[in-house]
């Protein structure tokens, strides 16, 4: 799973969000390391919707602008969970080999 995808799904795992909300949340989750931009976000959302991992939650009009909220689907949650397990296992293996604290002895 690519990092933007992971960040989008993680952002939506907390609850439905609109596009700008996802962008700012992704920045927070990555501690400012990743700045998600509109082109990347909507290309990813387009794909994730096609794959059934996210869906539209609701639409609002704020200051004459359309705001669409997205939410993660059950399949999206399952995929994110699998990715978390994979990353955790990889990170644990790396920590073990490096003898870092937190890795199993």
């Amino acid at each position, binding site marked *: 799973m690519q990092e933007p995808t992971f960040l989008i799904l993680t952002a939506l795992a907390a609850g439905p969000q*609109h*596009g700008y909300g996802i*962008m700012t949340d992704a920045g927070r989750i990555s501690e400012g390391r990743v700045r998600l931009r509109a*082109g*990347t*976000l909507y*290309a990813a959302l*387009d794909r994730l919707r096609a794959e059934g991992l996210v869906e539209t939650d609701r639409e609002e009009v704020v200051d004459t602008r*359309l705001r669409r909220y997205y939410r993660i689907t059950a399949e999206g949650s399952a995929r994110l969970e699998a990715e978390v397990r994979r990353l955790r296992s990889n990170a644990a293996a790396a920590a073990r080999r490096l003898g870092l604290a937190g890795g199993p002895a």
Partner: protein
Amino acid sequence: MSGKKAARRHAQLRMEYRQKRLERRYRRLLSLYPADHRREHAEEMVGVLLEAAGDGRRRFDLADAADLLAGAVRIRMRMLRTHLRDPRWPGNSMRDPRWADALAVASVAFPLLLVVAALAEMGLPQAAVSELTGQGPGVLSGGYLGMWPLTFGAPLTALLVLLRLRRIAGCAALLTAISLIVMAPELWGTYADPGLAVAVFLSAVAAGALFCSPGPARGLVLLRWWGAAVIAAGALIMAALTAGTVWPCCDWPSAPLAQAGAGLTSAFTVDISVGGSVGDDIAAMVVVGVLAVIALACLRAPVSRRVLMLLLVPAIPYVFILLGIFQDTSYIGNGLPPGDEYPLLLLYLPPVLLVILIVAVARIGRARRVPS
């Protein structure tokens, strides 16, 4: 006081102007996205982009612009991949069932006609016989492989058609057409060759028919037992051309028989079919006869008028070959300019115009059937 008010008003107007300009620029970039995506997301994306730009910063962000551009490319590539994976692609592009059926018939007939054209162009069967009999230039010598777009493209396309591999056959036909066009100056020395024109139009229309119709599976159903006749006709032409070599006819310049008996040769031979020096009058008549059988087989199909229109495309340059057969040993017996001065426009423009007309007619037909 009024000065401050005016300044505030001025600043507000300036900000609004900048915001509008920024929005215009983003919208211009969003026009690169597919129409469906724009309909669904453009307003939302403009909102997000302006929100991300913030009140304090109204400048056009180049990184955002590059990201939007990359996003448009990604979405278009994904759409293309989805489109290519669609099992109906590209057979769903001809929605008028009558034209789809006509093209299905053409998807069988044209590759077979292309094989006939290739055989006539190369004289390959004669070469095989001459190899066996010791007369003539022999098989695969004298540049038969030099005609490689036809040598390989035509039989490969026909084989794939008979295996009913529509899309792969379409690719083979398209590659044949492209390689004929690209290699013509090197292999034929000129584009002004009616045989070349026939082969180009046969392979191009075959590719179009294979891509835009249900393909050979449907075509063979429509042709009924005549479909078998078409295939038999292909075999017959091969036999006829092979038989041609045993007649005293060779006009290959290097053939010992031709050198020994030039008078006899000129009395019997004509430059026939599809540009090559194939054989004698009888072989030429057989070629024409077999082509007529194929045409008749196609005309027996339920969509005969449309098939006839399609057959006219390669038939136009073929007319000039027939003129050569019936009038003289060249294509230009009727006062037309000789050899490579043959008018290109006369060979290529009418068939191209006919193709445009057919596409226009098919689209009008479709529009009538689908009033939306």
